[in-house]
C-alpha cells in the first residue's frame, strides 16, 4: 500500500514540475512524510527528462525528411485516387446496369433477397458463413498451427509448416475487419512473432513470415514483444506486472 502511494506521489510531483505547476520544493512540502524518499527520485527523474529531451535532428535534416514525407503522401493520394477511379470504371463496364437507377433498384431487391437466403442458411447451419465466425475459425487454425510448430520446434522449422502458417495468416488478414473486436487476435500475433523470430536469421521463409506478422501488427495497432533474436525458441514474452517487477 505504501509502495503504491509512493508511485502515485512521485508521478504526481513529476507531472506538476514538468507542466510548470509546482516547483520541487512546493511538491515536497505537500507530502512531508514521503519527502525523504521522493526527493532524490524526483530530482533523478527531472535530470532524465532534461537529458533525454535534448537530442534534436539538425533543422535541415528534419526539413528534408518532412519534404520526402509530404511528397510520399501526395503521391500515395494520387495513386489511390487513380486506383479507385479505375476500379469504379471497371465495375461500371462489367455491370453496366448498375449505372442506372432502375438497375440499382433491382440490384438492391436482389441483394436483399440474397441476404435473406443467406440468413436462413446461417440459422440452419449455425452461422458458418458469418464474417466473425470465419475469423474465429481461421484464428483457431492459426493457433493450432502455432502449437504444432512450438511442439516440434528444434534447430529449424519445417518449410511446409511455415508455408501453411503464412497462408493462414494471410487468410486471416483478408477476413479481419476490426482487429480490436477480435478476441485473442493480439495475443496470437504476438506469440507468432515470438515463435518465429528466433528462426528468422537462419530461415528465409521464417524471415518472410516474421515480416508479414510485423506488417499486420503495425496495420492493426498491435505492439509486438521484444524477443531475443538468438536461435532459442521462445514461447511467449511475459507481461510486466507490479508483483513481477524486480
Amino acid at each position, binding site marked *: 500500500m505504501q*509502495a*503504491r502511494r509512493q*508511485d*502515485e506521489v*512521485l*508521478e504526481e510531483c513529476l*507531472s506538476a514540475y*514538468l*507542466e510548470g505547476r509546482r516547483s*520541487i520544493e512546493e511538491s515536497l512540502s505537500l507530502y512531508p512524510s514521503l519527502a525523504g524518499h521522493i526527493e*532524490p*527520485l524526483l*530530482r*533523478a*527523474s*527531472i*535530470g*532524465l*527528462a*532534461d*537529458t*533525454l*529531451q*535534448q*537530442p*534534436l*535532428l*539538425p533543422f535541415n535534416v*528534419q526539413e528534408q*525528411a*518532412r519534404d*520526402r*514525407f*509530404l511528397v*510520399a*503522401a*501526395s503521391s*500515395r*493520394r494520387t495513386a489511390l485516387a487513380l486506383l479507385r477511379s479505375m476500379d469504379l470504371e471497371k465495375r461500371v463496364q462489367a455491370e453496366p446496369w448498375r449505372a442506372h437507377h432502375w438497375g440499382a433498384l433491382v440490384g438492391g431487391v436482389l441483394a436483399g433477397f440474397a441476404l435473406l437466403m443467406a440468413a436462413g442458411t446461417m440459422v440452419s447451419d449455425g452461422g458458418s458463413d458469418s464474417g466473425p465466425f470465419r475469423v474465429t475459425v481461421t484464428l483457431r487454425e492459426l493457433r493450432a498451427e502455432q502449437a504444432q510448430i512450438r511442439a516440434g520446434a528444434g534447430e529449424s522449422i519445417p518449410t511446409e509448416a511455415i508455408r501453411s502458417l503464412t497462408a493462414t495468416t494471410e487468410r486471416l488478414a483478408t477476413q479481419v475487419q476490426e482487429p*480490436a473486436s477480435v478476441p485473442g487476435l*493480439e495475443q496470437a500475433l504476438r506469440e507468432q512473432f515470438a515463435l518465429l*523470430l528466433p528462426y528468422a*536469421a537462419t530461415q528465409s521463409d521464417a524471415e518472410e513470415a*516474421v515480416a508479414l506478422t*510485423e506488417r499486420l*501488427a*503495425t*496495420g492493426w*495497432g498491435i*505492439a*509486438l*514483444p*521484444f524477443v*531475443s*533474436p*538468438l536461435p532459442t525458441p521462445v514461447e511467449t514474452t511475459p507481461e*510486466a506486472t*507490479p508483483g513481477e*517487477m*524486480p
Partner: protein
Amino acid sequence: MSPNADASGERLIVDAARAGDQAALSELYTLYFPRVYRYILARTGSTYDAEDLTEEVFMRVLEAIERFQWRDVPFSAWLFRIAHNAVISQRRKDGTRGRPAPLSDGLATDSAGPDELVENRMALNQIMEAAEQLPEAQRQVIALRFAAALSVAETAAAMGKGEGNVKVIQHKAIAKLREMLGQPKKQSIQRKQTVDAGTKAG
C-alpha cells in the same frame, strides 16, 4: 506533459490527415517527429538508426492512418506502437548484423556552448548504457515518458498496460537508474532552477 495538450485540436488534425489533407499531415509531422526521433534514439542508441527509423515510422503512418480508429487508443499511443514495432524490426535485423553504432556527431542539442554539448552527450550516453541493463518494460517506460514526453495515460495506452502499472514500473526504473548512475546532475537541475527563477523574476 504532452505538447499537444489540446486534445480536440489534435483530433481535428488527425481526422483531416486521415482524409489526406496535406497541411494536417505536415502538422502531425511537426508535432510528433521530434518525439518519435527521441524515443527511437533512446531505444536504439544510434543517431543513424533513429534518423532512418523515424522516417520509416512516418511512412508506415501514411499507409495505416486511414485505418486508425479513435475508439481503440489515443493517436499518440497508436503512433508509438508503430515506432515500437519499427524498433523491434530493427533490433531483429541488428541481431544478424551486430550492435548498432553509438551516438554520433550528427546529434544536435538545444544547448549553446561546446562544453555543454559534450556534457549533454556524455550524460545521454551514460543514461543509455545504464538503461540497457533495465528490464524491457522499464526501458520502454523511460523512453516513452522521458524521451517521447508522453503522459502516464498515453504511455499506458501505448504499452497496453494500466496506468497504475506504468507508475510502478516508472518508480522502479528511476530508482534503479539513479542507483546505477550515482547522484544525478544535481548541478544541472540547480542551474535550470536558477534560470527558471531568473526568467520568472524578469
